[in-house]
């Protein structure tokens, strides 16, 4: 069914064009990353480029990147998930609560991720079955899942340290801030594994192609036999799973799950995806881009900190960069839709 779609002439053409522009966008974001690194490296007299600092940045961007992966899937379908930060908190606190109740760490992690999957499923059902706009639907569930998180934690952090079992503490701490192969932070390794897995799913499988098809033109996708609801549902479930994964890693880093963990992180994830070339309009994007996007944000923050830039000035600079990223994305799409007349103009949703 889907192979038929992929081989249809028009689609091949679009995907080729898309592939080119994706590459360019990634190249551009990657270029920005390199320029920023050289810039900060020079201004901090090499302090920025020290291996320790680069590994620090990798650890710092890990939760945002993992959150961004799931959001990339949802954004590609043309949706959004504003509840991702709350689901992060929910997954983390459920996992921590399970550990404090005596459940073993691996099982607790599975329970935490399951909590995220259920949250994602609920988001998906509200969007697809109740037909609520993703923005509003997930704005609502953002409150609901935060409330659930506070309920589980009774408004307080769930501390693993309070159990006092040194064995559990050290294992959990390793997951959140341990290092392997010498100095590489363990969460970052998880992030890389997740990036490769999800990247392959997105770019090499039929499911990945369906995601792009749904995001490019939902009606056309439906008519060509794609189960739009199932595709979207899966995207939200993946987003729930990655969100809770990020939450568990954060809880592990502090050996304590905060009931307010992840507040506002969904926006960081969306920013990372968008800077990396994922379109908020749907139909375009990639995991590698999101990794690069997350690093652009992380490098900016770290570099500005090392340059001792005032906290408030930093906010202005980072905000400006995000706006520039989205502006560039919009301008490029407009140019693209003007230059490729025969392709369906997505902005208007009709044939030109």
């Amino acid at each position, binding site marked *: 069914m889907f192979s038929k779609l992929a081989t249809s002439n028009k689609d091949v053409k679009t995907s080729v064009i898309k592939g080119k522009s994706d590459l360019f966008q990634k190249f551009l974001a990657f270029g920005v990353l390199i320029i920023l690194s050289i810039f900060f490296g020079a201004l901090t007299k090499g302090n920025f480029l020290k291996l320790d600092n680069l590994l620090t940045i990798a*650890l710092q961007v890990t939760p945002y990147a993992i959150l961004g992966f799931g959001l990339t899937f949802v954004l590609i379908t043309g949706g959004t998930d504003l509840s991702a930060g709350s689901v992060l908190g929910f997954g983390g606190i459920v996992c921590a609560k399970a550990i404090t109740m005596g459940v073993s760490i691996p099982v607790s992690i599975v329970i935490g991720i399951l909590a995220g999957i259920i949250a994602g499923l609920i988001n998906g059902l509200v969007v697809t079955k109740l037909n609520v706009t993703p923005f509003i639907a997930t704005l609502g569930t953002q409150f609901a899942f935060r409330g659930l998180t506070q309920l589980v934690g009774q408004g307080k952090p769930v501390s693993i340290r309070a159990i006092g079992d040194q064995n559990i503490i050290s294992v959990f701490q390793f997951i959140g801030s341990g290092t392997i192969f010498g100095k590489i932070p363990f969460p970052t390794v998880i992030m890389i594994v997740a990036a490769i897995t999800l990247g392959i799913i997105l770019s090499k499988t039929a499911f990945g192609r369906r995601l792009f098809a749904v995001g490019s033109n939902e009606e056309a996708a439906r008519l060509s036999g794609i189960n739009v609801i199932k595709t979207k549902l899966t995207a939200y479930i993946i987003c729930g799973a990655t969100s809770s994964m990020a939450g568990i890693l954060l809880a592990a880093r*502090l050996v304590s799950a905060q009931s307010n963990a992840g507040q506002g992180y969904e926006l960081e994830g969306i920013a990372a995806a968008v800077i990396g070339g994922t379109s908020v309009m749907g139909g375009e994007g990639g995991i590698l881009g999101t990794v690069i996007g997350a690093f652009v944000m992380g490098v900016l923050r770290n570099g500005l*900190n090392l340059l001792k830039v005032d906290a408030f000035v930093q906010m202005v600079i980072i905000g400006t960069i995000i706006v520039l990223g989205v502006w560039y994305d919009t301008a490029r799409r407009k140019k693209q839709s003007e230059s490729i007349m025969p392709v369906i103009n997505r902005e208007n949703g009709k044939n030109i």
Partner: protein
Amino acid sequence: MKKLFGILLACVLIVSMLVGCTGTVTGDGANKTTPSSGKTGDSEIIKIALITKMVDSPYWQTVKRAAEEKAKELGNVEVTHLGPPTEADIDKQVQIVETCINSDYDGIILAACDIDALVEPVRKAKESGIPVVMIDSGISEPVYDAFLSTNNVQAGAECAKLMAELIGGEGQVAIINFAAGTQTAIDRETGFTEEIKKNYPNIEIVGVQYCNADPTVAANQATDFITAYPDLKGIWGANDQSAIGVAQAVTEQGKSESIIVVGFDNSDDIKAGLKSGTIKGTAVQMPTVMGSEGVQIVVDILAGKAPADKAVDTGVTMVTTENMNDPKIQAILNQ
């Protein structure tokens, strides 16, 4: 799809069950603490309503216990603990205050859920001749008799003194504050920086970052401070989440020996940090003082002795790795 809906429905049911349970537990708990003797001597017993933001939280239970103990000590005082089920139930708290005015309470101790909504009820109580002592959270107009709270400027200065002592009076110090633009956060930061500027010319505050009470963000910011200032001597986390994040960063960077972490407030994680030595000291607020002093002040007012100053600082206790095993300090840590 039907299956999915079944699962969803099950989830909703479980959640509503949970919510239902907590609802009944919290309720509108009015716990009579000193059982009223039921004898005729009611006029001699001073009845005080302790109205907190909610009933069922360790913090307010601590306040309540302290108030009860004070009542027992004074002998002729009876404290009733009241409050809405959650801190967000402002209307409910207004109703509770109004009910108290209409029943036979002699005095009210109140922690306001909202700075504006409780002004009128407090005014009404005062007009009916009932003294009102505010604790912890005040109201926008000073219509009350007294307000007991932590003076955060003073508390910030205490943290600065401890930090200065621990780093030997000289070197670079960074601040991770928990919010920009919140009064409590501004007060603490002002207290800390003013104290350093005034009394410790050899200490340099290299910068302030705001972590939005997110320990992960605090950890990232602290790590960057450590990278940017290799000679950094100390980092102050201005609330519990900031301090936990800072302690984590210092541990990750292997600097727990050379960088002193001072925190603010108290939680399980802070206690663990003190025990392991990653946090060298913290400022603990005194809800017990709010409870006991609140009762004392109401009794004083009824005896015709109004407090000289409406604003009463309940102070903080600096708990350090040195003094934390002192039984007195242990009691404060576990209050």
